[in-house]
């Protein structure tokens, strides 16, 4: 039953893409630029299918090369102002064909720990879907949620919360 749903979803998705590419002639350069078809923006964090097997033991990971992507309080969607950051990640990965990226999803300190674990994963998956939309192979993108367990700003106000609602990028070889 599920697989039939998946097929239907896939067919609908392709039909949508076809329609969009049909009427939005102004969009430049394939999937990832027409807003309606982009993963990660309208909560479409499922368009890119299953996750690949996890990368090695962490010894070949590097972090800090990319600026984190930030989220609104009640959102797992990639905001328009954050998209340039993802284009930088995508460009880097396209230049280096080896390895891939782990997208770490984080939340602010408010609310249930278990729900935040799920929300962080949705944020990571929205970023992954956006990167796939930019033409990256989904098999090179892992997601990892930390929920609200790993804050970077320790205050208890919106200034800190807005810094904690983020996705970070870790490259792996």
């Amino acid at each position, binding site marked *: 039953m*599920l697989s039939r*749903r998946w097929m239907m*979803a896939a067919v609908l998705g392709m039909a949508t893409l076809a329609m969009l590419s049909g009427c939005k002639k102004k969009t430049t350069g394939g999937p990832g630029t027409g807003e309606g078809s982009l993963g990660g923006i309208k*909560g*479409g*964090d*499922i368009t*890119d*299918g*299953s*996750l*690949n*097997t*996890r990368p090695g033991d*962490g010894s070949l990971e590097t972090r800090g090369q990319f600026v984190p992507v930030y989220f609104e*309080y*009640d*959102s*797992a*969607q990639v905001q328009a102002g954050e998209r340039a950051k993802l284009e930088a990640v995508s460009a880097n990965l396209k230049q280096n064909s080896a390895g891939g990226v782990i997208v770490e999803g984080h939340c602010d300190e408010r*609310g*249930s*720990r*278990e*729900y935040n*674990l*799920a*929300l962080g*994963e*949705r944020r990571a*998956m929205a970023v992954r879907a956006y990167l796939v939309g930019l033409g990256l192979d989904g098999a090179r993108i*892992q*997601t*990892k*949620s*930390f*929920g609200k*367990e*790993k804050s970077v700003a320790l205050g*208890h106000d919106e200034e800190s919360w807005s810094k904690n609602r983020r996705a970070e990028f870790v490259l792996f070889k």
Partner: protein
Amino acid sequence: MMTDISSGQSGQSIQGWETRGEPWPRIWKTGLALLLAALSAAPAQVRVQKTAGQKSALDCAGFAATSSGAGAEFRRTLQEDLARSGWFVPAAPGRGEYALVGTAGGGGAEVTAQVQFSSAAQRQLLLSKQYRAPVGDARRMAHRVADEILVAIGRKGLFSARIAMIGTRSGSKELYVGDLDGGNLSQITSDRSISVAPHWGPDGNLITYTSYVRRYPDVYLINLASGHRRVLANYPGLNAGGAISPDGQSVALILSKDGSQGLYIRPLHGGAPVRITDAQRAALASPCWAPDGRQIVYVSDQSGTCRPQLYTISRSGGAPRRLTSRGPQNVAPHWGANGLIAYASLMGRFQISVLDPVTLDNKVISSGDGDYEDPSWAPDGRHIVCSRTVNYRSQIYLLDTLGDPPVALTTNPGDWYSPSVTAK
């Protein structure tokens, strides 16, 4: 690193045996005298106590203990438990509806107690036993006696239960297990990683939780008795929500391996996870089985991000049923053996509510300062253990659904949260 578990379990070494019918002439005479005294003076007082919350007056004046050491600790713990049970109030000597008489003392390596518990109203000896345990188990022995007294008055015990929780005392988020009164705390993990959301299996020996000890959020299974830990789920993406079914055969999991979050069920000891939820655009959390194992309650934000609500679904899948609609966030459900679901509801602050999943009637249990979260039913079906966060510091509390004030169970340094109580 994977076998650093010290369970601290010692309850099995407590011995107790019936002494009814054995010769206890002096104590029995004292008890009888107290009973008769209680009978002649008690009725008016009892009536008042009953209307003030179903509490019975309990006379403990006839229970003697050594003034210090294990005997005193036993007596203090037993009296504290009986007061916290919510079914007793202290009575003036000779004026109780119930009377507790006996002795407790420590002799070298052992603590011993003789306990007679009787009903003045029915002129009946309800419990008469001797107990013996290693001196370090005085508190656990008292918990057991308290539970046996509760059963003797037709209630359910709760003080022999144990709480699994997360504590930050060491500087990282580790798993701890303690008694229902917060005592006898032992640190289970020493990973210097992040531990999240422990949940007991039905037998009170297995614990599932999510840990980053291998860098990713994976679900682990700890066997406290054997001290072993193994990975239950380490699929790509999120692994969370490990909840063992009441029959101990299956585990519910929240996984994202297929590209969207789903609720999955898998045999506990291996096999392929089967997805039972269809929603593709939702964050899912906190699965918990119904007592009969036929349904699961869980959290989903399919109605809106940061608006998580409670849903139930059959273990074989199908359409979920939404249980909550009032308030922006209704989270962290725990389905008690009494059939009621305790959960945390955001009403400015988080408060604990109790919901009847059949009628959807609900009642707010907690009140006052702070956020009350992550409720877990105690085995008596009356009390709820939860975390309370005030000024960004969290401690574990015992709530009473019948209105007694909350009791802090932890007062230790560090934060203590995400409690899960054993079924017994």
